[in-house]
């Protein structure tokens, strides 16, 4: 009875392994390709709502800035590469001083101090990358601001230049 049962021939095994091997090869190549690309690219922060909000609000504040544009100090705050103090116009035409505080890792805080009432408003975004603030000299526009952010691997993910618009 045992003699009547046969297993797989070598050729059958080889063919099955070849087909399965080809399938595995495709999966491995695709995965390696994806990994290589992920290692090369920075994290796409622009898909993160909180980070997009930071960038958008900062852009608006700088573009709406009015003389004297920036302040070295305001209250207890001092301008640095982790803090921006900008004087900007509101929709009603009044001004406010805005302190953008990037000094806490993973957190960005916008504090606004209005001219008239001195009232303050505070808005904080969480889960943010490490931002830094600098200037970017453009001929004829010494008031440009450059905001940069890197991901946890140190890859530059955000690099944007804003400058105040004429009002």
């Amino acid at each position: 009875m045992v003699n009547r049962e046969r297993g797989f021939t070598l050729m059958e095994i080889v063919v099955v392994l070849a087909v399965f091997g080809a399938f595995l090869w495709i999966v491995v190549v695709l995965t390696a390709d994806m990994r290589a690309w992920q290692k090369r690219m920075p994290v796409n922060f622009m898909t993160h709502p909180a980070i997009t909000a930071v960038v958008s609000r900062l852009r608006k504040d700088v573009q709406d800035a009015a003389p004297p544009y920036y302040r070295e100090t305001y209250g207890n705050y001092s301008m640095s590469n982790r803090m921006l103090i900008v004087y900007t116009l509101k929709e009603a035409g009044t001004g406010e001083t805005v302190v953008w505080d990037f000094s806490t890792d993973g957190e960005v805080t916008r504090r606004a101090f209005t001219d008239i009432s001195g009232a303050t408003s505070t808005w904080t975004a969480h889960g943010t990358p490490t931002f830094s603030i600098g200037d970017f000299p453009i001929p004829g526009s010494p008031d440009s601001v450059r905001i940069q952010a890197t991901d946890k691997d140190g890859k530059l993910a955000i690099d944007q230049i804003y400058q105040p618009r004429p009002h």
Partner: protein
Amino acid sequence: MSLYARGYNRHMARQRGFSLVEVLAALLVLAVVITTTMAMFVERQKRMQTANETILAYQAISNEIEVRRRIPYSQLETASPNFITDTAILNPLSPYAATVAVSPPNNSVKIVTISVRWRNGQRVERVAITRVDTGGSGLW
């Protein structure tokens, strides 16, 4: 032959394996499922990659626009045809080409086209801005 062996043989005789057509049909269905899944995976990956690369390209283009808007109208043609701003953000797209082209003036209007090409020129993002001779400089 033992009673057990006789029973086993009868049992086996009643059992049929799959026919060649059945096996082929099953393999065809499996192949379609695997191919579709992998095609979806590859397409998703490709689109994600393109989207992320485009975001980097547009950041560089936006920065360059800020500078090109500030260059006086009369000096647009003589300004560098390469990006003046830092293009470190484009490093993941290497090799890439970041260029600026200025059209000849037409009714005191010049079109400044800012482009980034990568993947051997297969991917291109460009933005054209309009500069008008207002008699002054740095206006937009």
